[in-house]
């Protein structure tokens, strides 16, 4: 079908076209600008529904593939396609972006540029999840930085400039090393097979079948370069220091997309590239990486506990939750990896909602200090109810979305290493501690601060922003199979590749290090 060939391109570039069209709008026409931006984001969402509606869960390969030469002289193609893992991440992106736009409705400062950057950002994020050409992937990967840099730097808080530059430089360092690794892989593949191409499926196919094997040294270096890029983005402990700064200073919508989607680019990269391309090194270094992930889980939770600032608390909780995802990925089990993907989506939904909620009271009070609040339930009952559900979802209450992912990750990890699972499970307990304690201090009790006496409950627009996320929280908690089954084929396929690496053998690689 013609549409199937075109749909990925449409989904990816509709926001960009919208952004270009936005240039033609008059700066003063605030309503038209944000209305148009929302319409574009919604249109993108509707288009992306086609992907899931026509997705064939039985197929393990890439679907909706489009592959046309782009820079032929360099072996670069415009090559896009999705599988059971990326289809959800694209949907997450297209679903969160309109909500983020809705959440920015009351913005008045330079709205045109703001929405323009939001739309460009959306194109970048979708592109990362859809690109199958390594060059194209890198291009989208870096493009994402620029709109986010502006969103933080122009519309952020006090220390926004510091946070914006730190965000860019941290992510860049990982990214550029990955670029060199991509080039090295390209030449190794080209010299071995005579086919100079950046096509990920082509390189993967020859890596696993046709006798193009990386030497252990080469595989190690390439793995490290890719891993560094992804680990900084995740962020895995100890590469996480940019995250709290970026989150605290970013405007609400920026935080929603940063936590909801941008961090997932890192874990997605691990799944899509690190594991299949470098299975030997992934196995070899898995214990080390798992330990870092566990440290991240516990450290993130402990630090979150003592934060006086709501946004910082949520930011550190992200470090903790993302640790689970990495742990699941490096368990090399179906449960662990499906749990990781599930947790990626679920964290996007819950943390997205948490940032929206924090943003709503920040807009009213212009502070995010926990100590400034208390007793909000008396003044904002609807808000309090929503907040409670989201808090519980973030903790991982059974029946809500957060539980499924964490449970699967722990299940997968336990089968491989009970000790790891035991340590990681403390993260679940700690998350209950910091989230409930925070919730108690902000929402329960009497109104102690006179500034909170006259707070208005959330309005219709804010309800509309939160409603889709609430539905998802319950849906993903109850009918997890709706989401899990379509990934089965892709995850099994991935594991096959990781468990049966051709060429190098894990043991010979280990010898190298003795």
């Amino acid at each position, binding site marked *: 079908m013609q549409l199937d060939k075109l749909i990925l391109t449409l989904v990816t570039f509709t926001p960009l076209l919208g952004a270009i069209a936005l240039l033609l709008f008059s700066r003063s026409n605030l309503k038209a600008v944000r209305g148009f931006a929302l319409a574009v984001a919604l249109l993108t969402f509707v288009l992306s529904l086609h992907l899931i509606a026509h997705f064939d869960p039985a197929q393990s390969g890439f679907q909706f593939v489009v592959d046309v030469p782009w820079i*032929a002289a360099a072996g670069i193609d415009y090559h896009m396609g999705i599988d059971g893992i990326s289809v959800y991440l694209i949907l997450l992106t297209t679903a969160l972006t309109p909500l983020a736009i809705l959440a920015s409705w009351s913005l008045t400062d330079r709205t045109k540029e703001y929405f323009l950057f939001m739309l460009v950002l959306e194109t970048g994020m979708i592109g990362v999840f859809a690109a199958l050409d390594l060059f194209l992937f890198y291009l989208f990967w870096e493009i994402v930085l620029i709109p986010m840099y502006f969103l933080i730097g122009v519309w952020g808080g006090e220390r926004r400039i510091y946070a*914006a530059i730190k965000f860019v430089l941290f992510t860049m360092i990982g990214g550029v090393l990955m670029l060199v690794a991509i*080039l090295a892989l390209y030449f190794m593949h080209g010299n071995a097979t005579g086919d100079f191409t950046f096509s990920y499926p082509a390189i993967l196919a020859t890596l696993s079948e046709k006798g193009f094997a990386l030497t252990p040294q080469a595989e190690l270096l390439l793995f490290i370069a890719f891993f560094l890029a992804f680990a900084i983005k995740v962020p895995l402990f100890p590469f996480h220091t940019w995250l709290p700064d970026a989150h605290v200073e970013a405007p609400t919508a920026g935080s929603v997309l940063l936590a909801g989607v941008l961090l997932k680019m890192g874990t997605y990269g691990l799944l899509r590239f690190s594991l299949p391309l470098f299975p030997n090194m992934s196995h070899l270094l898995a214990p080390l990486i798992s330990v870092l992930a566990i440290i991240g889980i516990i450290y993130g939770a402990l630090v979150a506990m003592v934060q006086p600032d709501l946004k910082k608390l949520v930011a550190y909780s992200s470090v903790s939750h993302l640790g689970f995802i990495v742990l699941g990925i490096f368990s090399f089990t179906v449960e662990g990896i499906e749990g990781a993907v599930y947790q990626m989506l679920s964290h996007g939904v819950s943390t997205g909602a948490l940032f929206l909620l924090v943003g709503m009271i920040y807009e009213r009070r212009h502070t995010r200090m926990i100590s400034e609040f208390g007793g909000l339930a008396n003044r904002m009952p609807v808000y309090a109810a929503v907040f409670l559900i989201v808090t519980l979802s973030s903790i991982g209450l059974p029946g809500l979305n957060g539980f499924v992912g964490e449970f699967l990750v722990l299940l997968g990890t336990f089968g491989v290493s009970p000790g790891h699972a035991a340590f990681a499970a403390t993260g679940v307990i700690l998350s209950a501690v910091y989230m409930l304690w925070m919730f108690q201090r902000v929402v329960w009790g009497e109104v102690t601060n006179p500034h909170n006496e006259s707070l208005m409950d959330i309005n219709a627009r804010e309800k509309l922003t939160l409603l889709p996320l609430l539905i998802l929280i319950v849906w993903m908690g109850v009918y997890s199979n709706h989401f899990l089954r379509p990934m089965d084929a892709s995850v099994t396929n991935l594991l096959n590749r990781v468990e049966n690496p051709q060429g190098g053998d894990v043991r010979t690689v280990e010898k190298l290090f003795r």
Partner: protein
Amino acid sequence: MNIPEINIYSILPIIVLSVFGIAIMVIEPFLPSRNRATSSPMGWLAFAGTLAAGVAIIPMRNHPGQAYSGLWIVDEFSTFFHVLFIAIAGMTTLLSIDYLRRESINHGEYYALLLFATAGMLVMAGSNELMMIFIGLEILSIGTYVMAGFRRTDLRSNESALKYFLLGSFASAFFLYGVALIFGATGSTNLISISAAMARPDIQSSLVYLSAALLLSALCFKVAVAPFHIWAPDVYEGAPTPITGFMSVGPKAAGFAVLFRLFMTAYPVIEDRWTDVMGVLAALTMILGNVVAVVQPNLKRMLAYSSIAHAGYIAVAFAANSQQGGSAALFYTLAYAAMTLGAFAIVTILSRAKDEKVQLGDYAGLATKRPGLAALLSLFLLSLAGVPGTAGFAGKFFIFRAAVEANMTWLAIIGVLTTVVSFYYYLYVIVQMYMREPGEDFSDARLTPALILVLLIAVSGTLYLGILPGKTLEWTAASALHLSL
């Protein structure tokens, strides 16, 4: 004795530029001088000259091969640089028209010098013989010395010219000395004969090495590769802004054109040595240029250091010593010209008489005052930094690709890491424009047709080379093919 065949077509662009240059000098005295503050007929005449020279490339290209007893060569490589240099000259002319009026130095000689300097660059690109290259180098240099000091009542402009002249003379001397030594060793100054003579067993290798070192130093000076870059920041800062733009793209590209042709044609015998040396110099240049650019408070000076850094990137492609490297370097000079001239166009528009408002702090809040100009400058800066989708990224990508291919992965790693450093200072300008409170008033910065034209060319070049580099890459690859014999 045979009279060598005179092939006028193969040097037609040079003839056209020279004729226009002389015409400007001759006509100018007869023009009424009172109009100087309002109109610049000589500027537009010079622009017409560059257009005509551009057209003259077509017949030149149709007469490929050596000419004038092997002094001159017309191939894809020289054609490429003819196109590049004439385009640079045209854009610089357009940039200068308003600038000169504003600075009250609207003299025709300026344009004549610009055309002559461009002719010098063309001579450098098409020469197949060391003395010819030297003549081209001198024509270019003398023109640039004068243009650098063209704001003659301004101290910094004088300093700029004097510094450039003194150090440039050293470089010329180095070059000549190198030519003398290689002539002594091989008995020829023709590149192809030199290359043939190098293969002889009785060649004195010390002379070969010494000459290579001298020639390399002289040319590294011209392209401002560390440690021969010391002159560049002061010279760039003091020169008139359009000339700063010209100097950071034109002579740099010309220097690299000679480096490529000279070393790949005449010195392949010792290529292991000079590629190593060049690799180290490239690394040094990238590190030094980028790191020092971070602390510059003056935009022109910052761009000067960034231009040193960019010379480092092109030097990486040179050190790769391959067809890919040559192709990448050519692509980069093109991309670099588009984005740099674009950036200098914005600086020219925003600066005032006597070069005021070129401090980074002056750009605070520009995005609220002049959103269009701020957006364009951001685009050029992001391209210089190497953000995907822009010419700068495509260029860097091809260069690092060549480096990895040539087993110089370490150089590529240094390259990408210094790119991260460069993000800091390019983004800092954007920080000023978008994230700080408005300061200076820029409401009187005028966009004239000439400047709009420059910006249009620069923007379309930056985006076209960034998004659809394929066609251009094929062209540069074909041009670089003629390099190695």
